[in-house]
């Protein structure tokens, strides 16, 4: 894998591969700026809906200019291949790599065309042109070639590939993938068979999945496809839907022919689908662990995983919690989950940090010297008063008198001449309200007196046990 990455770095043409649909994602590759930045035909921001349905001539022109540019780039790449074609001794991997780049670009072009054509798509879908029996994904995968370029038989593959590169079958297959819903989210850019060598290279994913070599098909969606809000479009009005089922429901409004049970039923899976390879996905963000070029590549299992992963890891966190106004999320569902618990972080540390779980708080307290859990306050005001008291007491312990006076005990303080009420008012009232000082006052009487009288009867004197040592 490392080797292949080096190849890519060494080839300026290879940048094409990265360039498409990821205009701002790869600061690490400096050469990418050789192509003029273009506006993605799917719109710069994920929030603009279905731009290809927009019949704005300016956009159309933009798109066509982009396609032109792209074709020119592909031609350049092929030129270099032709130039170096004489010396077949050159790295086979390099050629395979270039071919893959070309393939990717061509695919991109097709997609661009389709998306620019927009409403032509449904008619394409229905045409006999696409009604072939499936050519088989294995074929397709072989045509495209391995991503690593380290496959021993890559040369022969690429030889075949050269001839077949532009054959209509490829496009049929591609369209099929695009339209038949098995690849729901859209466009295949890199369709790669994971070869044995790939799996051996790095650590296998910690996800614990251990698919036998060659048994899974690796797909990589591009940013725009990942961020596109809708993947199912109405062939008549162009409205987009997240789910095919919703689209079918929508179609009912377009005529009685869409109301038949057959039209409403879930389209049966092709018989060939059962034999299909398990699909795994790669993140388009290079250097991400979920990208197929990463040394410890861990594939994503579903389209949904791809979407969530890409948004969480590589997108701005645009949803802010409306309660705490601090936590931000890029996936709406995460925000919803957070909002359910937000404000319930009842485990509070003295430093002000709050935790949703007690063990987290305790781990925090264990880590930081002097931090201590804060108790939930019953009466917040009294509590804060009390804290300030504790402080004042600690200060005043050096001066005994001032400490005595910092407590003001209504009835009991008769012998305290210098009264100094230090912010005790806050809790003084409720503190003393329940206290019964009736008898207490009496005890302040003969404080220095001779406390003992021999007779044991009178209540005014202490029982003998008062002076009993513990």
């Amino acid at each position, binding site marked *: 894998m490392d080797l292949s990455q080096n190849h890519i770095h060494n080839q300026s043409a290879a940048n094409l591969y990265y360039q498409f649909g990821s205009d701002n994602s790869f600061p690490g590759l400096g050469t990418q700026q050789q192509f003029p930045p273009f506006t993605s035909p799917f719109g710069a921001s994920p929030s603009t809906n279905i731009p290809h349905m927009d019949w704005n001539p300016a956009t159309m022109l933009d798109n066509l200019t982009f396609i032109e540019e792209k074709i020119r780039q592909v031609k350049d790449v092929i030129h270099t291949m032709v130039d170096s074609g004489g010396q077949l001794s050159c790295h086979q991997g390099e050629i395979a790599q270039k071919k893959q780049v070309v393939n990717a670009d061509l695919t991109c072009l097709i997609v661009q065309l389709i998306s620019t054509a927009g409403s032509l798509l449904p008619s394409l879908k229905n045409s006999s042109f696409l009604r072939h029996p499936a050519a088989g994904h294995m074929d397709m995968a072989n045509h495209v070639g391995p991503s690593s370029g380290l496959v021993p038989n890559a040369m022969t593959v690429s030889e075949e590939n050269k001839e077949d590169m532009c054959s209509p079958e490829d496009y049929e297959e591609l369209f099929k993938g695009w339209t038949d819903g098995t690849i729901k989210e859209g466009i295949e850019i890199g369709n790669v068979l994971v070869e044995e060598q790939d799996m051996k290279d790095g650590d296998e994913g910690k996800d614990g999945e251990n698919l036998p070599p060659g048994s899974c098909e690796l797909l990589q969606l591009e940013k725009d496809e990942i961020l596109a809000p809708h993947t199912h479009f109405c062939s008549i009005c162009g409205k987009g839907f997240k789910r095919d089922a919703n689209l079918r429901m929508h179609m009912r409004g377009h005529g009685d022919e869409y109301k038949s049970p057959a039209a409403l039923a879930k389209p049966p899976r092709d018989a060939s689908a059962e034999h299909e390879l398990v699909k795994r996905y790669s993140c388009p963000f290079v250097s991400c662990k979920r990208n197929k070029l990463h040394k410890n590549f861990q594939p994503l299992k579903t389209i949904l995983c791809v979407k969530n992963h890409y948004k969480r890891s590589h997108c701005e966190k645009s949803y802010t919690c409306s309660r705490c106004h601090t936590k931000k999320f890029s996936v709406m569902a995460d925000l919803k989950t957070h909002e359910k618990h937000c404000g319930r972080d009842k485990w509070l540390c003295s430093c002000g940090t709050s935790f949703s779980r*007690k*063990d987290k708080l*305790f781990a925090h*307290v*264990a880590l930081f010297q*002097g*931090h*201590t*859990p804060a*108790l939930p306050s*019953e009466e917040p005001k009294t509590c804060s008063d*009390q804290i300030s*008291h*504790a402080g004042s*007491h*600690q200060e005043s*312990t050096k001066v*005994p*008198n001032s*400490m*005595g006076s*910092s*407590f003001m*005990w209504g009835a*009991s*303080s008769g*012998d305290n001449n210098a009264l100094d009420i230090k912010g005790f008012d806050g*809790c003084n009232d409720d*503190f*003393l309200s*329940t*206290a*019964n*000082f009736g*008898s*207490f006052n*009496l*005890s*302040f009487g003969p*404080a*220095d007196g*001779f*406390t*003992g009288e*021999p007779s*044991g*009867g009178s*209540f005014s004197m*202490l*029982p*003998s*046990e*008062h*002076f*009993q*040592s*513990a």
Partner: protein
Amino acid sequence: MSRQAQKLDSAAGDGAVGIGVLSLDLLGQVLHGLWEPRDRKACRLVSRAFERAEAAHRRALRVLRREPLPRLLRAFPALELLDLSACASLDDASLAAAVAGAGGGLAGLRSVCLARANGVGWRGLEALVAACPKLEAVDLSHCVSAGDREVAALAAAAGLRELRLDKCLAVTDMGLAKVVVGCPRLEKLSLKWCREISDIGIDLLAKKCPELRSLNISYLKVGNGSLRSISSLERLEELAMVCCSCIDDEGLELLSKGSDSLQSVDVSRCDHVTSEGLASLIDGRNFLQKLYAADCLHEIGQRFLSKLATLKETLTLLKLDGLEVSDSLLQAIGESCNKLVEIGLSKCSGVTDEGISSLVAQCSDLRTIDLTCCNLITNNALDSIADNCKMLECLRLESCSLINEKGLKRIATCCPNLKEIDLTDCGVDDAALEHLAKCSELRILKLGLCSSISDKGIAFISSKCGKLVELDLYRCNSITDDGLAALVNGCKRIKLLNLCYCNKITDTGLGHLGSLEELTNLELRCLFRITGIGISSVAIGCKSLIELDLKRCYSVDDAGLWALARYALNLRQLTISYCQVTGLGLCHLLSSLRCLQDIKMVHLSWVSIEGFELALRAACGRLKKLKMLCGLKTVLSPELLQMLQACGCRIRWVNKPLVYKD
């Protein structure tokens, strides 16, 4: 009053000038030599000089009532130990006021006991801690309402080394965390019965208090994870984990990986601990001295025995209560641990004479032997104990009914240090007591259910055992007033006396008891012959009386209560269920006794509802425990009940039939 005090008295009487010229320091030294509180009181009462000396030098104080607390704290500025556990109706405000009134007088205070002081909350504690910068030990045990806030108040005492929180039911991990962060120098901590504390709290404790030497986590719902944390405590010497049912052998193995400082381990009633776990614990602990494994083992494995042998030099205490033992096992224990000082075999089945003989043959240092309910043993076992264990101090033989006076004769002759013997339900007679009387060091003697004991036997005891402190004569119903007369003649130091169901005793007998000035606990259950007259003589004579049980003394009436109200000023616990008292007597009693904290009054048929209501209102702030018939629950005014509960009083409502079946 002891002779010492009398001498000082006479000196004071001869010329107060003589004592007055001595410096306070010297007088303080004199007072320091007086052990008995009564003697010190005598000195204090007869001489101002002594009073001043005591005021300056007194270190410990136990306060019984709330009212004089502020004055006492000011009077004794050098206090180091303050015991407020018996201080009736102590609450936040009074404690804080007393502390504030004492000024700097508490600066030297090191230890405060607030056990069962239910009325004290976090405000009082905060004031106390703020006023005592040198505070090192606090006992909050059995303050059932104490919670995190109270404990958090203690956390401000940064120098705290000892803390007891037994049965502070509301304390959670949060409170514990406050303490362990605030008091990092903690050395002794008891968390017994703080059921809210979990592994998380214990883990933090182990991280924050590295100097911990003694830890009690009994009855907590903690698991092996706690033991893993605890094993990181390098100085831990004592660890008690009674009835921690989530702890098993795995936990003990984790514990064994800790440091070698551990000396005492208590795994009593830990259901999931086996001898294998103990063996792995011992494996790492060559310095283990005490091992409590009562009611937790079902069998002893060979591995445990072999490990036990490695503790030969150190192990002094072994408790195996409730285990099924064999002769060979006892012999093996004897051979492995011949330095044993105490062995507990209470309720062990299979303990025979042979087993005991082979055990004691090896362990000649034994001082305490607990054979409660080992009912197979006979005089032969006692003979071998007497022959081998000359140092014996405590022997518990409850329900060993095969023994008789011959065995006890041997014990009494050979073990002159015997201080405590339990012969409950052993069927011994006067002849046995005649032999036991040779043990002049005897402090505790339990003779319950030995109905053949008569006045004669008591006379033997009283003639020789002048140091007797506790005597249990439960259901020794041959004893009469003459026996009591003989008893008080010789045994004047008795503090605890149980005479329940000795129903030949009359007021005359109680009149004799009146000369026991040090008597603190007296149980007179079901003595239907005694009346108010007898109670009066006890109340007048026994000035130290703290606990009195008069349940089913059917002839006791208001006169008895009046006497108690007038004289038994230190009375703290009282049972008057089934007595023939009226509302008037009850009101007077409850309004007069200012130390009374616990009263049981079931089936007082002569007391009207108004009587109860008034009496309880009079005692409201002081009562901590109350037992009444549940029928009263609905008829007493709810505000009274609320008030009682607000003052920290727990009420037990019982439903018992009036008719007594004997």
